[in-house]
């Protein structure tokens, strides 16, 4: 039989999380070593015998055996998870305890526990995201570096430091204490949001890498929704915005690997199942009194998702939603998107006026899509030479070949 896509990556996260729970967070490196060993064994046997019926169960059972070996061999020399200490000391309780810790419910909690542990307040947000990708999603340093268009050395340093902080914390995050859970939840949501955005808007040129990051974020947010304390209106809103954006992924990059602007996308390529799922989640998010940026972003995405054509979009409503978003989470990027919506609603002159009036627009000076928006609106009101100038500026700022190609096309559209 064939292993499913990314089986090893998925199982990596589950096994590291389970073993870290048993060994204790200070033994994170040991847990990773044992998981590597389980993979080596799997490959050594499977290459001659074929993939077993249930490869995930085979891997997990191997990890369990390896864990028991380590616990028996090293229980006098090492301390393991403090809360399990005495259970692991005696041979009579060791095997049943480990068996229970590898049960399906325990494993689900392990992933969540690890997710919360990775979002440690002492770690900067971008480090939390890298750590989640590395530990929970099984991305290697090189794979993270390629996704973030960063160097191997830079990512390695980031991850090594982050692991040190994680391993230095006394124990894994306790997900059973409601107050602690809710306190850390917003950091976890933010990390998953950033992970998704890195995939959606990020700097990597490779379409495959980008959609993988989006899918990992969606997988983890689904896990959060399965936990009673994690399934808050805000988490639903976050999940909704991910679905509604991910629905547009197939139309965002065409077969030749070129970017398509939202207004030019072939809407028949949008994933209708994800749209429906997103709308359902958005409905579930509409309880409680809190209106978060995720809610508003999901609402904006839902306006696009349900508009049959660019012209049929309710731009007035979208502008109003951007106004709200600006008050909740003010940022020059939000202001930029608002200006583009205003241009759709009231014409390019009004849009340009808004673009020039963005308070901290100098923060967008390295962002290619500010200049590109200026070019787009100048082009729309017939000032070709000015538009070309802006597109050239944008082209010079492009961060990857895909953006460069897209912006070169816009330059030549001004002829």
């Amino acid at each position: 039989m064939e292993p499913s896509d990314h089986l090893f990556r998925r199982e990596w996260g589950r096994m590291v999380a389970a073993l870290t729970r048993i060994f204790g967070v200070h033994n994170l490196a040991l847990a990773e070593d044992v998981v590597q060993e389980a993979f080596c064994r799997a490959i050594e046997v499977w290459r001659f015998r074929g993939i077993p019926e249930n490869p995930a169960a085979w891997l997990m059972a191997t990890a369990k055996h390896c864990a028991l070996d380590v616990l028996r061999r090293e229980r006098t020399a090492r301390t393991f998870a403090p809360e399990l200490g005495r259970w692991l000391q005696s041979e009579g309780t060791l095997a049943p305890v480990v068996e229970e810790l590898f049960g399906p419910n325990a494993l689900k909690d392990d992933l969540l526990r690890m997710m919360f542990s990775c979002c440690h307040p002492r770690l900067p947000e971008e480090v939390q995201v890298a750590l989640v990708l590395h530990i929970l999603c099984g991305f290697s340093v090189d794979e993270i570096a390629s996704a973030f268009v960063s160097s191997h050395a830079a990512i390695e340093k980031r991850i090594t430091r982050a692991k040190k902080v994680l391993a230095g914390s006394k124990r894994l995050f306790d997900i059973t204490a409601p107050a602690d859970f809710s306190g850390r939840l917003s950091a976890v949501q933010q990390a998953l949001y950033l992970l998704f955005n890195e995939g959606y808007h990020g700097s990597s040129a490779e379409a495959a890498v980008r959609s993988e990051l989006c899918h990992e974020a969606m997988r983890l947010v689904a896990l959060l929704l399965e936990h009673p304390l994690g399934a808050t209106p805000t988490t639903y809103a976050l999940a909704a915005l991910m679905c509604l954006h991910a629905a547009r992924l197939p139309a965002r990059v065409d077969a030749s690997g070129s970017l398509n602007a939202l207004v030019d996308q072939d809407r028949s390529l949008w994933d209708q199942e994800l749209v429906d799922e997103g709308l359902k989640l958005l409905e579930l998010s509409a309880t409680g009194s809190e209106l978060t940026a995720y809610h508003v972003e999901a609402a904006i995405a839902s306006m696009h998702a349900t508009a049959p054509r660019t012209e049929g979009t309710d731009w007035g409503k979208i502008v109003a939603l951007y106004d709200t978003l600006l008050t909740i989470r003010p940022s020059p990027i939000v202001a930029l998107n608002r200006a583009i919506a205003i241009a759709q609603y009231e014409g390019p002159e009004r849009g340009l006026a808004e673009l020039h009036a963005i308070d901290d627009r100098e923060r967008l000076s390295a962002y290619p899509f500010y200049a590109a928006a200026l070019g787009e609106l100048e082009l729309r009101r017939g000032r070709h030479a000015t538009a070309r100038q802006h597109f050239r500026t944008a082209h010079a700022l492009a961060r990857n070949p895909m953006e460069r190609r897209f912006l070169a096309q816009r330059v030549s559209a001004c002829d």
Partner: protein
Amino acid sequence: MSAFTYLFRGRQIPTSPEQRQKHLEKWVVWFQELGAQGHVKDPGHPLESTGKVVNGNQKIVKDGPYAEAKDIVGGYIVVEANDLAHAVELAKGCPILEVGGSVEVRPVQKLEM
């Protein structure tokens, strides 16, 4: 047709889970094709990388093969091929070669009594 033993050496498997899975998938395809063409006489065994070595008249027992990782035999199979050249040709498809490993092709001696 004659029998040949393949000795697979090297344990340098890529470290990223995704790369490992791709590597494994290549093995599975290669091995399946070999079997489908009727070349697999004995699917052999994977071998642990640890063990003991018993040596000399004094029967000295040492731990492990402890050779370098690239020299450790990780497993063997027995194939059937027309001749040595054919067996070597078949071995060239083995994915272990892509990760710095090697396949030693050894004709199995024919016992003619």
